[in-house]
């Protein structure tokens, strides 16, 4: 499929629900220039544009996966609005927001989506932090079992446990520690 043609909005939603990477790619390529324009002309850099855009795509992705997305407006407008909102937030965090933003597109109020996203973001960072603190071999065991969906048998072989029970005990202890670390974090 041609990458340069923007996918239709329903194509994108179906594509995300069915995990079609080609659709994701076309979506990404289609709207990145719009967001780049917004960020660069409002005192941001290319890297800021990349971060903001990817966050917006994640917002869209989660919303579609969560089954909450109703196609009440154009996807393009939704993405632009989320990026705009995220960028305003970041500008005010950096104390660089002068109360004025140059707009290039129409936009919608998307506060709820952005707030939901920042909650998820916090969870994500907490998980990341907890995994960092967990240390080896626990981190790899947990990642392999829960994240990469490896079987206990594979894990046993990888770490050289003599029997699956030892590995299970180890995995249990690791999970308990991870929970503890995760909930301890603020």
């Amino acid at each position, binding site marked *: 499929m041609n990458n340069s043609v923007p996918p239709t909005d329903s194509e994108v939603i179906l594509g995300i629900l069915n995990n079609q990477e080609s659709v994701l*790619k076309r979506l990404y*390529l289609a709207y*990145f220039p719009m967001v780049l*324009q917004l960020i*660069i*002309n409002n005192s941001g850099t290319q890297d800021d544009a990349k971060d903001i855009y990817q966050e917006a795509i994640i917002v869209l992705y989660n919303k579609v996966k969560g089954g909450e997305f109703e196609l009440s407006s154009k996807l393009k407008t939704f993405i632009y609005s989320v990026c705009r909102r995220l960028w305003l937030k970041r500008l005010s965090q950096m104390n660089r927001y002068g109360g004025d933003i140059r707009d290039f597109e129409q936009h919608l109020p998307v506060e709820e989506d952005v707030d939901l996203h920042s909650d998820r973001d916090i*969870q994500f960072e907490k998980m990341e932090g907890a995994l960092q603190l967990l240390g080896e071999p626990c981190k790899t065991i947990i990642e392999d079992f*829960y994240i990469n969906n490896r079987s206990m048998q594979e894990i046993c072989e990888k770490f050289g446990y003599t029997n699956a029970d030892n590995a299970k005990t180890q995995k249990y202890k690791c999970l308990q520690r991870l929970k503890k670390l995760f909930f301890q974090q603020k």
Partner: protein
Amino acid sequence: MSNYQLTEAIERYLKGEMSSEERAHFEQLRKDNADIDSKIAEHLHFTGLLNQYRERLELEDKLNAIHHEIDVHALVEEMTVHPSWIVQMWRNHHSKISVAASVAIFAVLTTMFSTGYFSNRNQPHYKELRDQIEGVKQAAKRLDSKTNDLAREIGSRKRMLSPSNYKGTGFAVSSSGYIVTNYHVIGNKYDSLYVQNAAGESFHAIKVYADPTYDVAILKIDDESFNGLPALPYNFKRMKSDLGEDVFTLGYSEGDAPVMDKGYVSSTDGFKGDSVRMRVSIPVNPGNSGGPLVNSKGSIIGIVSGMQTQTEGASYAIKTGYFYKAIQNVPQDSLSGKLSLGNKNTLAGLSRVQQIKKMQNYVFMVKVY
């Protein structure tokens, strides 16, 4: 059942690894024990979070891979709105420009301050009392032609009737026709000089000596119709004058008749400590320059020379001593008659009215053309 075994069981239950018998047993357990039910929920929630984490990482990897294919730099070039060069310059250098402007303003202010721009404006300065009549020249020219006709009719007497460019006052220092006035009254740019007495008679005069430093000029009447003056009624006081001494002056500040003003010596020094002059509290006007300053005994103690612009009644007079010096400096060969200052004072006992009556014939209007 230990926590470990429970977790194990929950995982197997959720993954559907239990046999149907085991499963039924576990579900019964779950129903009976709310604690186990909440443990299952908690486990689900936490593994859900782990799942989200995994999904997010995967998605980010994918997005980064896609992003890698974009030529961002080219897009940036295309996207950037290029403002005009002056706006761009301001954006890039506004801090430097601001600093430069502040420095410039500061420098200007410092210069203005150090050169006394702020102080001079509001401070009084010395104003010479030469009466400038340049402004009425046009009207005067019209008058001029008429009076010239008149003068031709009268014919017999040589009389200067046209108005002068400047006028001041002067007074006789000897009976032979020497007249002293201020240097600034005549200046050095003039065509001719005339003096006019209280009776309205005009005589041609020449400059004999001028001393810009002390602001003194000596004229000599050089006119055939001039027959000399009677002996001077006043003398010159060389001693320092006293503070508070009553003085008066005669001067042609208005019209053709001499005007008398009186006052007192208010300081033995002049403007800003000028020792050549003394300060006199006397109302004088332009035209008074060069007039005699006379004390109550009829002795001349100075020459009125100027006033301070902002203090009412603060005038200045050149001390007699300095104009003595000027007279001594007059080269002898430029004198056509004897120049000797009178020593006799015949005014001493008289009333002021009598003093003025005798004096006014010796006080002249100096007209400069």
